[in-house]
C-alpha cells in the first residue's frame, strides 16, 4: 500500500489515515488544527507551503503557571490594564506559512490585537487585551494550532533584552562622513590652480574637518580603547598601529589645514575607519535563532506544581521552591530540584545530566536529582535543596563558565601585528633621522607619512573577511559557529574528544539483536501487535525494528507499568518485558538493555539493544586518526565497549562512567599537558567539558531546540563532515597568511612614497582603498573556493 503524507504536518500517515474534507491526516491532532483553520477561513496556510504544520502536543495543565501574576509580570514586555505585549519563542517557526498564520492570530482570538513574527529569531510578539483574554489563553491557542511556545527559566531571568546597535550607528556615521568627504576632497585631487577652487578650498577643508571629527571620536573609539587596553597589558595588538595611524592622520591633516599646507588626509582617514568597521560588521555574523550561551536555565521550567499541606495544587516559580516542599511532576516534565520520591511510578531520563541513554526506575524514598525528566505518569517528590544548590546546577558555579575563551588566546592578526608595529616604527625612525640630516623641513612630513601609509587596514581586514565568509559557508552547511576566533582555534587543535550517547550514537534509533529460540510466524504477529499498543520507549523502538505484519485485534492486552506487556491472540499468550516479569530469573546479567519474551509461559529469548552509531562515524575516525589524538568520554557504562572497539581505530581511548565533573577534569588535565582539545558533546552533562575545551562543539539533532553552552553547534547529520570543516579552517589560516603577504606588498609601495617624502593625499586616497578592496576580493574568492570543496 502506498503511504500518503499528512495534509497538515507532512508526516507519513501510516496505515490508518484519517480522512476529512477530502484530505488525509496522520492523527486527530493534525485534523483538529485543520478544522480550526478551516472554520476561521485560514486555509490559505496550506497554500503558501505544503504541509507546514506540526502535531499539537498534550498540554493538559502544563501552562497553569501562566495565570500567576508574578510570572506574567516577568514574561511580558509591556503591561497595562488594557494592553499586554509578550514575545514568545516558538521553535517550530520555519516557513512563510508559519509567519502568515501567526500574524493572523487575531482571526482565531479577537482579543489579540496584533501579532508579529521575527523569523530569524523564531519569535512572535503578541499584543492582546488582558481584560478579555490572558497570557495562558494565548499560549494555549498557540499550542492547539501546533505552535507551542518554549518557555524556560531563561526567559524569566533575562528580562527585557537590549539590542546592541552601536556598530550600525558607528558604521552609519563613518559611511556618511566618508561619502561626503570624498565629494569635498575630489576637486583638490587635480591640483589645478583654478580661481574658484582657490577661493573656496578653505571652506571645503574645514567642512571635511568637521565631518571627520565624529569619525575619529565616535566611530573609531573602539580602536583607541582596544589599543590602550593592549598597551596596558603590554601587548602590541593590531589596534595599536591602527589607533596610531588614525591619530597621526587626524593630527597631521588638522595641522595642514590650519597652516594652509595642504588639503590633509581626511578622505583616507574616514575611508580607513569605514572599511575597518565594515570588516567588523561582516565578521559579526550571528545566528539569531541559536544561542551559544545556554546554561541549565534554558532547560528548566519556569514554574512547577506544588502541593500544599491541604492537598490543593498551586503553580510556583522554581526559584521559590524551598526545602521540604511537595512537588508534582507530570509526564515529560523536568525535575527542577534534588528531592526524594514520595509516590508515583518514577522513570527518570537522566540523559541531560549523565549522558546515560536509558531511563532509570526509582522507588519511593529514592533520591532524585535535578535535571532528570520524568517519563511515565505523575510523581510526587519532596524537595531537598533549592534550585541553585542542586547537583546539576552546581556545575555552573565552576570557574570555566565565567572565563572568556577569547581572552586566553592570541589570534593570528595580533601575532603578526607585534612584528609589524616594531618594523614600522623602526622604518619611521630611520627615515626621519635620514631626512633630519638631508632636509630637516621634510622630516616631520616623512615620519607621519610612514605611520599613515603603514596603517594596517588591509591586515586588519584579512581575518574578519576570511573568517566571516567561512562562518557563512559553514552556516549554510549546518555548522553554526559562535564567532570568528573559534574557526582559528579549530585550525589549531590536536586532540579530539567525543561524547558517546547522543553524539556518535543517534538518539532516535537503536539496534536490537534477538537471541534465543526463534519465534513462530504467529508469535511474531502477536509480538508486533502487542508492541503497537504500548507507548514505552523500548516498545516503540522494537516496533520500528520488527518487520511489518498484519494488524490484528488482540483478544486480550494488558500493560503492566514498569514490567511489561501481556497479550493474547489465537491461543498464544505472549509476555514481553523485563526478565522477572517474563519469568526468567536466571538470565546472565548484562549491562545492555534487554527485553525478554515468553510465549504461553515458555521462555523464548531476548532482544538486546545496542546503540546505533551515526553514519560515517568509522570513516570519520579513520580520517582523523593520523593527525589527532582521539578519545571517547562517556557517561554510560561499559556495555558498548566491544562494539566501539570494533568500530573505531585501535588507538582511540575509551573511557566510561564519566560524571560531568570528570569530563571537565579530564580535559583540563590534557590541556595542562599541552593539548589543544576539541570537545564534541551534546547534553548538559557535557556542558563543563565544552566550556573547558579550546573548542566545544555541540551536536544537535534539531538545532532549534536544545544545545548546551558551546562555541559551535553542528547538525547531527553533518558530523561525518567534521574532518572537512577542520581542514577548511586550516585553509582559512593559509588564506589569511597569503593576504598578509599581499598587504605587505602594498605597504612596501606606500612606504616608498612615504620615505622619499612624496606622499600626496591623492596617493594615500588611492592606495588605501585599493589595498583594502583587493584584500576583500582575494579572501572572498579563496574562501568561496574552499566552500565549494566542502559541498
Amino acid at each position: 500500500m502506498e503511504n500518503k503524507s499528512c495534509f497538515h504536518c507532512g508526516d507519513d500517515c501510516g496505515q490508518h489515515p484519517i480522512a476529512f474534507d477530502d484530505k488525509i491526516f496522520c492523527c486527530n491532532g493534525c485534523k483538529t488544527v485543520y478544522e480550526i483553520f478551516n472554520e476561521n477561513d485560514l486555509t490559505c496556510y496550506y497554500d503558501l507551503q505544503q504541509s507546514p504544520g506540526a502535531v499539537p502536543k498534550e498540554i493538559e495543565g502544563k501552562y497553569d503557571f501562566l495565570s500567576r501574576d508574578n510570572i506574567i509580570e516577568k514574561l511580558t514586555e509591556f503591561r497595562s490594564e488594557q494592553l499586554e505585549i509578550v514575545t514568545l519563542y516558538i521553535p517550530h517557526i520555519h516557513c512563510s506559512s508559519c509567519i502568515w498564520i501567526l500574524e493572523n492570530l487575531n482571526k482565531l482570538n479577537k482579543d489579540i490585537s496584533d501579532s508579529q513574527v521575527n523569523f530569524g529569531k523564531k519569535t512572535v510578539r503578541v499584543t492582546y487585551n488582558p481584560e478579555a483574554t490572558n497570557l495562558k489563553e494565548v499560549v494555549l491557542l498557540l499550542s492547539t494550532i501546533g505552535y507551542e511556545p518554549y518557555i524556560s527559566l531563561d526567559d524569566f531571568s533575562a528580562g527585557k533584552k537590549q539590542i546592541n546597535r552601536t556598530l550600525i550607528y558607528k558604521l552609519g556615521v563613518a559611511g556618511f562622513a566618508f561619502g561626503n568627504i570624498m565629494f569635498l576632497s575630489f576637486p583638490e585631487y587635480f591640483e589645478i590652480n583654478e580661481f574658484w577652487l582657490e577661493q573656496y578650498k578653505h571652506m571645503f577643508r574645514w567642512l571635511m574637518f568637521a565631518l571627520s571629527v565624529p569619525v575619529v571620536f565616535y566611530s573609531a573609539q573602539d580602536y583607541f580603547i582596544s589599543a590602550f587596553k593592549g598597551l596596558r597589558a603590554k601587548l602590541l595588538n593590531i589596534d595599536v598601529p591602527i589607533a596610531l595611524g588614525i591619530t597621526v592622520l587626524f593630527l597631521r591633516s588638522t595641522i595642514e589645514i590650519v597652516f594652509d599646507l595642504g588639503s590633509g588626509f581626511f578622505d583616507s582617514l574616514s575611508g580607513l575607519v569605514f572599511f575597518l568597521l565594515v570588516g567588523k560588521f561582516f565578521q559579526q555574523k550571528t545566528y539569531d535563532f541559536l544561542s551559544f550561551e545556554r546554561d541549565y536555565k534554558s532547560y528548566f521550567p519556569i514554574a512547577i506544581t506544588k502541593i500544599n499541606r491541604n492537598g490543593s495544587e498551586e503553580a510556583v516559580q522554581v526559584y521559590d521552591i524551598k526545602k521540604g516542599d511537595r512537588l508534582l511532576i507530570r509526564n515529560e516534565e523536568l525535575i527542577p530540584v534534588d528531592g526524594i520520591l514520595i509516590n508515583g511510578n518514577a522513570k527518570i531520563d537522566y540523559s541531560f545530566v549523565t549522558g546515560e541513554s536509558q531511563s532509570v526506575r526509582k522507588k519511593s524514598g529514592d533520591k532524585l536529582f535535578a535535571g532528570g525528566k520524568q517519563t511515565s505518569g505523575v510523581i510526587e517528590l519532596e524537595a531537598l535543596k533549592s534550585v541553585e544548590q542542586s547537583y546539576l546546577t552546581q556545575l555552573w558555579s565552576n570557574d570555566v563558565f565565567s572565563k572568556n575563551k577569547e581572552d586566553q588566546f592570541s589570534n593570528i592578526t595580533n601575532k603578526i601585528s607585534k612584528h609589524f608595529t616594531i618594523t614600522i616604527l623602526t622604518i619611521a625612525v630611520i627615515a626621519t633621522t635620514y631626512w633630519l640630516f638631508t632636509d630637516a623641513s621634510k622630516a616631520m612630513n616623512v615620519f607621519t607619512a610612514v605611520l599613515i601609509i603603514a596603517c594596517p587596514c588591509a591586515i586588519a581586514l584579512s581575518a574578519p573577511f576570511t573568517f566571516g565568509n567561512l562562518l557563512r559557508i559553514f552556516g549554510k552547511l549546518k555548522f553554526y559557529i559562535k564567532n570568528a576566533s573559534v574557526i582559528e582555534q579549530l585550525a589549531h587543535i590536536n586532540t579530539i574528544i567525543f561524547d558517546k550517547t547522543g553524539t556518535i550514537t543517534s538518539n532516535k534509533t537503536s539496534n536490537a539483536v534477538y537471541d534465543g529460540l526463534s519465534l513462530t510466524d504467529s508469535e511474531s504477529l502477536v509480538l508486533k501487535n502487542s508492541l503497537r499498543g504500548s507507548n514505552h520507549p523500548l516498545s516503540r523502538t522494537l516496533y520500528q525494528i520488527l518487520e511489518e505484519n498484519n494488524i490484528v485485534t488482540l483478544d486480550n492486552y494488558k500493560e503492566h507499568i514498569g514490567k511489561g506487556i501481556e497479550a493474547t491472540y489465537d491461543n498464544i499468550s505472549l509476555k514481553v518485558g523485563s526478565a522477572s516479569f517474563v519469568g526468567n530469573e536466571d538470565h546472565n546479567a548484562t549491562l545492555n538493555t534487554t527485553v525478554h519474551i515468553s510465549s504461553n509461559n515458555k521462555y523464548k529469548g531476548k532482544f538486546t539493544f545496542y546503540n546505533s552509531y551515526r553514519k560515517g562515524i568509522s570513516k570519520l575516525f579513520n580520517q582523523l586518526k593520523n593527525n589527532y589524538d582521539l578519545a571517547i568520554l562517556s557517561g554510560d557504562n561499559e556495555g558498548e565497549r566491544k562494539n566501539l572497539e570494533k568500530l573505531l581505530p585501535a588507538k582511540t581511548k575509551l573511557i566510561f562512567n564519566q560524571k560531568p565533573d570528570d569530563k571537565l577534569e579530564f580535559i583540563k588535565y590534557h590541556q595542562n599537558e599541552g593539548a589543544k582539545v576539541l570537545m564534541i558533546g551534546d547534553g548538559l552533562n557535557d556542558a563543563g567539558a565544552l566550556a573547558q575545551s579550546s573548542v566545544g562543539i555541540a551536536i544537535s539533532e534539531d538545532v532549534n531546540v536544545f544545545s548546551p553552552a558551546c562555541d559551535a553547534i553542528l547538525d547531527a547529520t553533518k558530523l561525518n563532515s567534521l574532518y572537512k570543516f577542520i581542514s577548511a579552517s586550516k585553509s582559512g589560516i593559509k588564506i589569511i597568511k597569503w593576504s598578509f603577504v599581499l598587504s605587505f606588498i602594498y605597504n612596501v609601495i606606500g612606504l616608498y612614497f612615504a620615505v622619499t617624502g612624496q606622499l600626496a593625499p591623492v596617493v594615500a586616497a588611492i592606495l588605501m582603498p585599493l589595498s583594502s578592496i583587493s584584500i576583500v576580493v582575494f579572501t572572498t574568492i579563496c574562501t568561496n573556493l574552499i566552500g565549494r570543496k566542502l559541498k
Partner: protein
Amino acid sequence: MSVIYIVLTVSVIVGIAFFVVFLLAVKSGQYDDSYTPSVRMLFEDELVKETSNESINSKTD
C-alpha cells in the same frame, strides 16, 4: 555672497536629513529583522489588511 554657499548648505542639510532618517530607522528596529518583512510583503492582497498595522506597533520597543 556666492551661490556656492547656498548650494553647499542645502546639500549638507539634505545629507544630514537622510542620515537622521537612517539613525531613526535603526533605532526603530528596522534592521533587527531583515528577513520577515520580505516574506510578509508577498502575502496576498486581502491578507495585507490584517498584517498592515504591524509596522505601527513595532515601534513601541
